[in-house]
C-alpha cells in the first residue's frame, strides 16, 4: 500500500506521515493525562469535603507530617522534571549520551523521592497513624483523626504508585535509547513519557501544600 521508500521503520502502517503519527500520540497522551487528573479528582473532592467538615482536625493532624521532608521531596521532583525535559531536549539535538545521563538522573531523583516517602511512611506506621480501623495513635485532638490519615495515605499512595509507574516507563525509555531506537527525527515516546512525568510532578505540587502546609 505505502511506497517502500519514505515510510520509515518507526512509522506504523496505518499512518501516512510521521507528523500524523506524532499528533495522534500527543492527543492520546493528553487524553490519558486528563483521565489521570479525573482519577485523582475524586480524591481531591473527598479531601475538600472532609476538610470542610473537620477543619480543626485537619489543622491539628497536619502538624504530624514532616514539612522538611515534604519540602525536600518537592524540590527533588521539580528537579527531576527539569532533567526529564533536558533528556528530551538532548534527543531533539541528537545527543544520545546526554539523553542517557539525564534519564539516569531522573530515575535517581524519582528513587530519592520514594526513599524519603518510605522514611515518612514508616515513621507514621510506627506511631500507629494508619488509615481507618488500623489507626491507634492518640495524640491528635478532635474526633475521627483516622479520616485525615486515610485520605493522606490514599492520595500520597496513589501518587507513589504513579511515581513507580513513571520509573518503569523512564527505565524502558533508557533501554530503548541505549538500543538506538530514537533519533533527532523520532523521539515521540520519550516526549510522551516526559508529559506523564510532569503530571506526576504537578500532582505532588498540589498534594504538598494541601497536606503539609495547612495554615
Amino acid at each position: 500500500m505505502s511506497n517502500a521508500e519514505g515510510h520509515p521503520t518507526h512509522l506504523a502502517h496505518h499512518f501516512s506521515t510521521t507528523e500524523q503519527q506524532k499528533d495522534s500520540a500527543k492527543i492520546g497522551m493528553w487524553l490519558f493525562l486528563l483521565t489521570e487528573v479525573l482519577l485523582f479528582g475524586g480524591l481531591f473532592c473527598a479531601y475538600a469535603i472532609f476538610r470542610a467538615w473537620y477543619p480543626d482536625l485537619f489543622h491539628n493532624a497536619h502538624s504530624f507530617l514532616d514539612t522538611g521532608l515534604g519540602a525536600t521531596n518537592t524540590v527533588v521532583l521539580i528537579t527531576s522534571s527539569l532533567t526529564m525535559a533536558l533528556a528530551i531536549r538532548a534527543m531533539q539535538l541528537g545527543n544520545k549520551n546526554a539523553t542517557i545521563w539525564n534519564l539516569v538522573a531522573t530515575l535517581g531523583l524519582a528513587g530519592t523521592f520514594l526513599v524519603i516517602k518510605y522514611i515518612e511512611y514508616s515513621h507514621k506506621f510506627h506511631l500507629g497513624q494508619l488509615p481507618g480501623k488500623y489507626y491507634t495513635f492518640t495524640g491528635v485532638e478532635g474526633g475521627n483523626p483516622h479520616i485525615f490519615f486515610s485520605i493522606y495515605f490514599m492520595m500520597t499512595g496513589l501518587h507513589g504508585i504513579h511515581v513507580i509507574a513513571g520509573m518503569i516507563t523512564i527505565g524502558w525509555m533508557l533501554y530503548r535509547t541505549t538500543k538506538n531506537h530514537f533519533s533527532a527525527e523520532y523521539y515521540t515516546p520519550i516526549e510522551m513519557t516526559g508529559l506523564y512525568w510532569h503530571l506526576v510532578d504537578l500532582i505532588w505540587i498540589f498534594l504538598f501544600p494541601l497536606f503539609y502546609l495547612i495554615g
Partner: protein
Amino acid sequence: MSTATATNYLNEAKGWKSWLLTQDHKRIGIMYLAGIFFFFLVGGLLALIIRWELFTPAKDIMEADTYNRFFTLHGAIMIFLFIIPSIPAALGNFVLPLMLGAKDVAFPRLNLASWYLYVIGALFALYSIISGAADTGWTFYTPYSTSTSGSVVAIAVGVFILGFSSIFTGLNFIATIHKLRAPGMTWFKMPLFVWGLYATAIIQVLATPVLGITVVLLILERMVHIGIFDPAMGGDPVLFQHFFWFYSHPAVYIMILPGMGIISEVIATFSHKRIFGYKAIAYSSLGIAFMSFLVWGHHMFVSGQSELASLIFSFLTFFVGIPSGIKVFNWVATMYKGQISLKVPMLYAISFLILFSIGGLTGIFLGAVSVDVHLHDTYFIVAHFHYTMMGGTVIAFLAGLHFWWPKLWGRIYNETWAVVSCLMIFIGFNVTFLSQFIMGAQGMPRRYYTYPEEFQRLHGFSSVGSLILGAGFLIMTIYLLHSIFRGKKVGRNPWQSLTMEWEAESPPITHNFDKDMVLEHGPYDYDIVDAKYTEEGTL
C-alpha cells in the same frame, strides 16, 4: 496490493494465535462481539430465571438471598460486560476506521490491550460469581456493600479493570477521529455514527476515571475500612452515591449515544434520503454529552441531599430531554417523504423510535421530584430504564448488527426469520415491561423475590413476555450463526448506502480498502449521488 481477490481479513491469517495477537480493528471488533454475546446470553438467562421466580408470589425456585445475587449479577453483567462495550467496542471498532476511510484505529496495540482488559475484568466478574457473588445490586451502595457477606471485592476489581478497558477504547477513538479521517472528510462530512462515537468517547474518558477511583475507595473501605463512607467512623455513605452517579448517569449516555448514531445511519440509508438536520443531530450528541455531567443528583432525590440540590438537578434533567427530542424529530422528519424500505435494520430502527420515546418520556416523569419520590425504587424505574437501555440501546445495537452484518461476513441472514425474530422481540419486550410500568405506579417495589397477591397477574404477564423475548433471541442466534457459513453472499454495498465503509469489500481486506480513500461525496448526499451502485450488490 491487488484488488478483488478472495483474501480478506477473516482468512488472510489462520489459527488462534492470529486472532489473539491481532492488531486489526476488525478482528478485535469480532472478538468483542464474541465476548458481549456470551455475556448477553449469561445476563439474559439470569433475567429469565428471575422472571421464573417472580411468576408467582411464593418462593418458586430460590431463596431471597439467591434472588438478590441473581438480580445483582443480571444488572452488573448486562451493564458492564454487555451494553457499555456492545456498540462502541464491538461494532464501533469494526466500523469506525472503515467509515473514516482509514486503515486502522490510531493505536492498534492499545486496542488489543483494551480487549484483554475486558477479558480480565470479565474473569474477575466470573470469579466473584463462584466465590459467593455480590448481592448489593449493580449500584454497590454503601454501607451495605461494605458489610454484606457477598463477594463485592472481586466484582469491584472487575469493574475497575473494565473501566480502563472502556477508557482506552474512548481515547483511541477520539485520536482516530481527529487524525485518521480520509482527505476531504471535514468534521461536518463525518457520518453521524462517528459523531455518536465521538460524544460517547468524551464521556468514557471524562467519567470513567471517577468510577475507577470510586470502586478503589469501595475496595479499600471493605478491606482496610478506611472509614470515608462509614458514618460510624465519621464518613459519609451519601458521598459514595454522589461519586457513583457522577459516573453512572453519564454512563447511560455512553450506552445510548452510539445507539442514536446507528439509528441516524439506518434511517438515512433505508429512507434513501438526506438526513434531516445533520448539524442539529451532531451538536445534540455533544449537548447530551455535556449535560450528562450535570444531572447525577436525580438518582438521589430521596437520599437526603438538600432540597435546593434536588430542584436544580430536576431542572437540569428536564433540559437533557431537549437534545434527545431534537434527534427523534429529525429522524421522523428524515423518514417523511423518503423512499422507505422496511428491511430488518429499519424495522429495528422504527422499534427504537417507539420504545426509546416511551423510555425517554417516562424519564422526564422521573426527573420531577414529587413524582420520583412516589416512584423511587419501584418497578416503574425498572421499566423506564429497560425501555431506554434495552428498548433503546439493545434495539439500536440489533439495528446496527443487522445493518453491518453483511459487511462483517460478506454474507447475509435469512430475511424472513429475521423479521419474525424482530417482531417477537418487539412484542415480547412490550409485554414484559409495559406491565412493569403499571405495577410500579401501583407501588410494587423493585428487588424483592416475593410480592403481594394482587400483583400476580401483572407479574405473570411480564414473565410470559420474557419468554417471548427469549424465543425471539433464540431464533436470532440460529439464523445469524447459520448465515456466517451458509448465508447468501453479498457485494460491497447491499443497502446502497453512501458512507465509506460500503466502498470496502465485504468482508473487507486486512488493510480495509484497495485504494487510498478520498471523500467524494457527503455521507447523506442521496439527492446528489444517483443510484450508481445498483448494478452491484443488490439484494
